[in-house]
């Protein structure tokens, strides 16, 4: 990858990577640090990479940095548990997006990451597996469980209102 291609990667992927991280962490400063660290690693290894692999490399690096950060911060349990005890969004008329965001927050970190990578970035099961260290079948299963949970939450909140 050349210097120009690297800078094009900044233009193309910085916002998406930041969105992916900050939607998981809910902490803009930590997300910014992780994104900067990911791009610094990309710059360091640019000569070993082809430009068409840069996006998955960035998201892989960012995802791993994020998991490490969460482990160090003791803010993540890498399970598929769906926390049922979180407060529901009931204080105001919820629109679909707000309900979805609330449902997304109730997913585990892995499930949320899978949903974000699928819906925002459009990755395939295999690509998501390469980023998260899962195989394609695991990605499909985890992702479908996350969809069903979000659907259940959506139905629940729709009926409440």
């Amino acid at each position, binding site marked *: 990858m050349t*210097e120009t291609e*690297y*800078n094009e990667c*900044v*233009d193309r992927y*910085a*916002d998406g*990577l*930041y*969105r992916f991280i*900050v*939607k998981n962490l809910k902490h*803009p400063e930590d997300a*910014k640090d992780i*994104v*900067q660290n990911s*791009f610094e690693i990309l*710059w360091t290894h640019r000569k070993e990479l082809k430009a068409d692999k840069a996006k998955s490399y960035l998201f892989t690096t960012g995802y791993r940095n994020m998991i490490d950060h969460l482990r160090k911060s003791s803010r993540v349990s890498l399970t598929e548990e769906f926390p049922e005890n979180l407060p529901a969004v009931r204080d105001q008329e919820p629109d*679909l*997006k707000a309900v*979805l965001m609330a*449902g*997304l927050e109730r997913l585990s970190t892995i499930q949320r990451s899978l*949903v*974000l990578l*699928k*819906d*925002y970035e*459009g990755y*395939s*099961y295999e690509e998501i597996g390469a980023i998260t260290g899962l195989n394609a079948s695991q990605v*499909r299963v985890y*992702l*479908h469980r996350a*969809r*069903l949970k*979000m*659907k259940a939450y*959506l*139905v629940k909140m729709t009926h409440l209102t």
Partner: protein
Amino acid sequence: MDINRNNYQQYLLREVDDELSAAEKAALRGFLQAHPALQQELTLLRDTKLSAEEVPFPDKASLYHRQIAGKPSSRRGMYRRIVLAAACAAAVCLAAVYLWQAKSPAGAPATSYSPVAGHPDSDLVQSPVRPPQDPAPVPHLATIRAADKPGSGSKQNLPGPPAPAKPRAPAPPEIPTLALRPLSRPPAAEWVPTISKEISREAPEISLPAEQNGEAPEVKAPGVLGTAEALAQAKDELDEAITEKVATVHRSTRDWMAQLAKKGITVGNLTIALKD
């Protein structure tokens, strides 16, 4: 491909994830037409799909890199190098101007002093370029800047264009000096007066033009500060002013001495006269 009530949900979820092949999509479409009540479930699952949302990275400029001469550097580093290069260029320019100005005074053309036409003592106003027999030329700033000893190689140290050619006898020896020389005058025996006992302790008043009473000559400020032309012009004007003052003092002294020799000078009750 068999889609039934036991496995249709997997197909719906893969449809939402856009992971079905064309054949699977066609099979699912046929299944839903046969079971329209399941269409709502597909709609609900599609509603769980996140819509596009812009979340811009707040400091994208910090991520860019610039590579100069094979060495990676950030944009901040590039700005730092530009500032450093500009500072170096400014330092080189200042050094060049300083060196040029340091050389120019020694090489500046010597001021030519012409005798004042019609003035009885105009011969006292002499050119700074004197024949070698002249014991004490009128001081000139150009010579003041030279080294102390003649032939000390100061000329090599202070190169510059030569003074305007003036007809003169054998080339005068290099008389570089840092000290002002006294104005040339006749031998002391010709003018040193012997004052009588009644001589007053009060020195005769020698009236000088107002501009000579300790007032510094007016020197025009250079039009452009620091330019060599302005400095050379100021130096020339200063040379002319100094020479003019010295000549005027000399004239006044000679007038006073002539008067003293003829009839003496009376100051109050005292008479000052020269002895033969």
